[in-house]
């Protein structure tokens, strides 16, 4: 099992870092496009956000740290780190780039306070996991790398299961009305999606149950043969792409996909350990 993990972790990190870099580039460029938000007359003006609970936010140090110039430096650092992830395979350089992404993600979460989404959360977790994987490779210590694989894969399994279970508890999701309602909004909907789904109660209910069961049962894919697991992940990738098109959730695709290689390793380790392969 150790030899198997040693042979797979390098490939897994290579795929994860590229997908994470795509997310980091995409989300950072979108923040740069919205840079007016950080200015004094913007929605995220530090003059207002520094008033939040916690004396530390009103200190001179925090004011200097979170000013617009520092924020622009942080965003440029993220772009450089993402580019380094794309072009480099050196474990130490990857550690440095991932450390920058983790630190700047914390910076942005503290600076913005409002508006964080699930893509930011998953991106940050994948970056921490990938940092552990790269650190393990740099130190030739598999256990450290495995901690990273476990973190990324575990969080993906929990995220899909919890998303499905929360929907199961909702009467709106069970009846199929949820997807019609969401597609009917301008924030997260799509005119075509709204028209198609509201035209047939059976279709909307079927779609909702497909999402509920698919998300809830995803952890079972860990015990499935390798090819079945790959098919399940391909289906979820398609699901995220559809959400990007219909709901505008474009930044969700890449951090979630970046977690897939870790789930593949965990799945292979599980089936090998249990003799299911």
């Amino acid at each position: 099992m150790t030899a198997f993990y040693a042979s797979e972790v390098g490939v897994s990190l290579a795929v994860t870092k590229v997908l994470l870099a795509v997310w980091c580039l995409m989300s950072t460029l979108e923040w740069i496009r919205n840079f007016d938000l950080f200015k004094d007359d913007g929605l995220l003006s530090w003059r207002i956000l520094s008033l939040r609970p916690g004396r530390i936010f009103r200190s001179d140090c925090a004011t200097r740290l979170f000013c617009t110039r520092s924020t622009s430096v942080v965003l440029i650092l993220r772009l450089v780190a993402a580019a380094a992830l794309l072009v480099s395979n050196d474990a130490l350089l990857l550690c440095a780039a991932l450390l920058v992404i983790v630190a700047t993600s914390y910076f942005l979460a503290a600076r913005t306070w409002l508006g964080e989404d699930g893509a930011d959360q998953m991106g940050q977790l994948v970056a921490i996991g990938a940092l552990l994987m790269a650190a393990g490779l740099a130190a030739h210590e598999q256990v450290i790398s495995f901690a990273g694989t476990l973190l990324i894969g575990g969080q993906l399994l929990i995220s899909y299961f919890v998303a499905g279970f929360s929907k199961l508890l909702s009467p709106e999701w069970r009846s199929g009305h949820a997807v019609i309602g969401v597609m009917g909004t301008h924030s997260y909907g799509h005119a075509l999606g709204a028209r198609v789904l509201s035209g047939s109660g059976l279709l909307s209910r079927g779609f909702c149950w497909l999402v509920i069961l698919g998300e809830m049962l995803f952890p079972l894919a860990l015990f499935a043969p390798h090819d079945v697991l790959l098919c399940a992940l391909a289906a979820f990738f398609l699901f995220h792409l559809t959400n990007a098109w219909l709901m505008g959730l474009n930044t969700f695709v890449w951090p979630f996909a970046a977690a897939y290689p870790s789930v593949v390793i965990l799945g292979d380790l599980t089936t090998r350990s249990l003799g299911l392969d």
Partner: protein
Amino acid sequence: MNTIASAFGFLAVAVVLLWLVATLAFQHATLRGVIGPWDVFKVLPSWSFFAPNPATRDSHLLVRDLLRDGTLTAWAPIASFPSRSLLHIVWHPEKRPRKILRDAAKAIRLTRSRSSSKGVTQCSIPYLVILHFCMTRHPFPANVLARQFATVDTSGRDNRRIWITFISEFHRP
């Protein structure tokens, strides 16, 4: 050196296992209240996307002005929704300000429903964020004495239903 690295590795695995258990517990509303204050570094994510309450409403921000002659202007929206396009699969920066406004409007509603006086809401950061935005980003003609904002929810595309969820006091520039 290797012993230290191995020890660090096993410690990392133990921490990650604890992290995963805490993440699972954090998804439960009651346990979230207990664990939340301990999550200083905000490492526990919330994974219940669009559930149990799906986002079936759009949030709108409107302003109106009280003029010096005592008349009120009509409510005017200050955020718009561009139509969904294929480009949004790779490039959709508009979602950020919209999500910030949505989060702020939701927080104002929650604060208002949980507090006994309007003063508490008016001192909350989400209220100040929206007020500051309305005061600085919407033109302020010389004949305007004060400004008021409202958050309004709508659902559907053709036969829209409308809910007025919050109306602020008038504020002088």
